[in-house]
């Protein structure tokens, strides 16, 4: 699963958790250029595929491997 607040599903026992961007725009970032935003969404989806391909024993967080990814603007999230 992709979650903007990974600590919640990890605490509850979800096995494969991918860090999303924000609750209000989970799989992308409207502050980026359309091209960078598209790359970011693809990277999140690929991270999810990597999670599905990975053996896990316990709740595990999968971070994006940001080598060729755009930097993501992070701020505090008002959870909903």
């Amino acid at each position: 699963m992709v979650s903007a607040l990974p600590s919640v599903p990890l605490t509850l026992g979800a096995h494969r958790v991918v860090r999303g961007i924000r609750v209000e725009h989970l799989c992308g970032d409207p502050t980026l250029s359309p091209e960078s935003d598209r790359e970011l969404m693809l990277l999140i989806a690929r991270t999810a595929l990597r999670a599905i391909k990975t053996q896990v024993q316990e709740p595990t967080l999968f971070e994006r491997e940001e080598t060729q990814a755009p930097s993501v603007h992070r701020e505090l999230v008002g959870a909903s």
Partner: protein
Amino acid sequence: MTRPLKIVQYLNQFFGGIGGEEYNDQPVQVIEGPVGPGRALANILGDTVAVTATIIAGDNFLVEEQDRSLPPVRQALRKYQPDLVVAGPAFDAGRYGLGCALICQLANETGINAVTGMEPDNPGVMSQKGLYVIPTGSSPAEMVPALRKMAALGLKLARKEEVGSAEEEEYLPRGIRKPFNRHKQGAERAVDMVLGRIKGEPVASEISIRQYDQVDPPPPIDDLSRYSVALITTAGIVPRGNPNRQSTEIPRNYFAYSIAGVDSLTVQNWESVHTGFKGHVYNTLNPNYALPLPALRELDRIGEIGQLHDRFYSVVGGGCPVSDARRIGRGIATELTDADVEAVILEST
């Protein structure tokens, strides 16, 4: 020696030995002595208690034809004058659970104590108020341990002994609060709990919180290029106008929508009905942020996944009882399994 206590047990057509689902319209019949699970119950109870009669009826008949089904049950209870009625256990069988609850309620109305057993999510649990229900698993393989617990509580009820709290006696909370004096203020009790924790002593919370299921992680899939992948979102993404009237706050159900031939969601055609996202990004800019369809189309095109399932599932992530969440999850999982989907990416907002 005192006279043996008398028990009457209720069983459905299946456990009563009449037959399966095709016999669910069987009328009420009363048989002297124990039947099926009643024999196990009699063994557990020993010589001081006798299962004097067994009431058997078809699940549908008992619940749906109460004008005809309940009078013979009342008559049997008058005839046998039991000290206790034992209904079921029904495990996760919904209509059987409703029937057991109905029988217990009827017994209570005539002044006879009753106990039943069923899975905590069985609709029978909530169908009547104030019943003694022992929680069971979902499988009849647990018959004997379930009967053992029902017998322990049932004996107290039959002997009109005082019954302790739900926690002490292991029955499901009946929604009845009994005021009592803890003799210490809340603040003192909280400090006591903290100190207990620090000292490593067992500390019991005063509020019971239901445990979540622990599920084993499914094995990884090495080569996704051979499999179908589906998307689920909790952002309540629906076709604009919300044709199924999906709830905007607390999810009661799930909905599936076709994305066949769609490469990207637009705000003209799709919206999030989640009350938390009104006027926000998913509705004004880009619903794909809650359902990364363009990315999955791309991964499908370049062969990193076998294919993208042509329906996505939508629920509104909100305060949801565990039982509803489980029902919704099971429903989605069953449909996806039937559609040969092997992997799912859940967008959890």
